[in-house]
């Protein structure tokens, strides 16, 4: 059997199915079973990522499709964690659904999965920088959904929303700073206002704003959610939106070249 991306459909279908079954088990209050199933889904995707890494002979973190793969993976992780920690079956279901959508995009619209890795990306910073970032994207995505959910006030999700935001901001900060340290080593400047950097800074500051609103005593959930939604849109710009901006034409951060 040939390997690499060609065997992706099998792994994707198995992972999605296990995720869905985990969600159903969670709805039926079979907590233990749901946890095993979601861990199984994470395991299946880990296996795929590991074999892809070996076949490509470089970390699979460069193309758009590869970052989407990691996003699916981390969404499963976040869903599993939120379910285990706070028992949110609906958040587990949402994470599984989003992860499946991203895997489906990868299947139906594969972008060039080429094998090259330009010299600037051959650095010890590459793996921590990208994986920490994508993990924070998943956390912040879940936090934004929770914030919108809190507007309807059916159940108190305030604690989970706060924890996910703080965790997401912490990882985002580390992702950004490892990037700065790497940039210094690669071309001499910690920060050069490259389009992706500017959007990352904007995203980071909007999420910080959401955190500081609460700390400064502005308790309106509507205002907080509005800021979180702006931050989330900015995050999408930062992740793949910049690829389509003229301001990023010279950027090393563009995935689809």
């Amino acid at each position, binding site marked *: 059997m040939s390997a690499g991306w060609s065997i992706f459909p099998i792994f994707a279908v198995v992972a999605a199915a296990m995720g869905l079954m985990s969600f159903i088990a969670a709805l039926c209050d079979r907590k233990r079973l749901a946890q095993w199933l979601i861990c199984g889904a994470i395991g299946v995707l880990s296996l795929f990522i590991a074999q892809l890494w070996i076949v490509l002979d470089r970390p699979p973190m460069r193309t758009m499709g590869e970052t989407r793969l990691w996003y699916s993976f981390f969404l499963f992780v976040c869903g599993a964690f939120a379910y285990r920690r706070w028992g949110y079956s609906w958040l587990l279901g949402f994470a599984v659904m989003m992860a499946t959508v991203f895997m489906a995009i990868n299947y139906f619209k594969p972008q060039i999965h080429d094998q090259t890795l330009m010299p600037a990306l051959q650095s010890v910073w590459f793996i921590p920088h990208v994986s920490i970032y994508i993990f924070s994207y998943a956390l912040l995505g879940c936090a934004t959904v929770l914030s919108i959910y809190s507007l309807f006030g059916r159940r108190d999700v305030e604690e989970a929303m706060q924890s996910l935001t703080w965790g997401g901001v912490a990882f985002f900060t580390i992702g950004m700073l490892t990037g700065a340290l790497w940039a210094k080593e690669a071309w001499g400047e910690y920060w050069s206002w490259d389009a992706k950097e500017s959007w990352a800074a904007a995203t980071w500051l909007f999420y910080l704003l959401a955190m500081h609103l609460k700390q400064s005593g502005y308790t309106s959930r509507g205002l907080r959610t509005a800021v979180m939604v702006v931050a989330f849109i900015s995050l999408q710009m930062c992740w793949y939106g910049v690829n389509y*901006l003229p301001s990023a034409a010279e950027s090393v951060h563009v995935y689809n070249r």
Partner: protein
Amino acid sequence: MSRYSLTSLLLIAVAVVLSALLEGVMPFPVEFFRFPLNVILFVLWGWGIVELHRAGKRSVITRYLLSRQATIVSIALLAVGCLVMGLHTVPATDSYLFVLLNLFVITQLAMVTLRGWRDSSGVRWLFTLCHLGLLLALIAGFWGAPDTRIMRAELTDEPTAIALSEDGSVVQLDYKLSLADFRVDYYDNGVPSAYEAEVDIDDSRVRLAVNHPHRVGLGEHIYLTSFEQRGEAICCVVQIVRQPWRVVMFIGILLMIAGAVLLFIRGPKR
């Protein structure tokens, strides 16, 4: 609307009008603020911050800078500033508006950091690492910007001490550079996979590769950026970066990373 929100709006309006007027007179003279002027101004600014902190609630400026409105305005404006920067093809870092915005943000952040060290019981380390880290990084970026020089030089086997700075002016280096040897590997599809250069700096030979710069003196680094085939010969492009404030930036980044780790471990206050 509260008094502090009005003050913020007024400050924004003044900053916008002032920058528009000044922009019409001449572009922001970054070079003018080069060492020692930036250091003198920095010391005066720091002195002002300490005095404001000492004055405490008696000073109306301190009261405003430490108000929750000022915190929100400061973060929100910087976020919007970054957004605008993200849409620009050329970063507008040298505009008056951006300079004024940064001056406001670091002033507000410095005041909050000083107060936090005294007042934030229980989360003092978390608070201080995050805020002081960012403050140091911004100080290095803001006050150090006029001293940062980025130059490019083209190296061949002929020794040269000439580099071009970003604005196109010619810079005389304190040392001579020449290319002694160059190696490049390709992927099957013709894309370079790795390259490295042996470079002579005066009489000593060093190896340069992407992600592996060489340090000359304090705060000056040489980076291999690209290469070009010129007939038989190879010409290699290096970037020379002078950034005397880099240590401050580096310490700031380390403090922020430590702060972020603490942020994750401790989580929001229950």
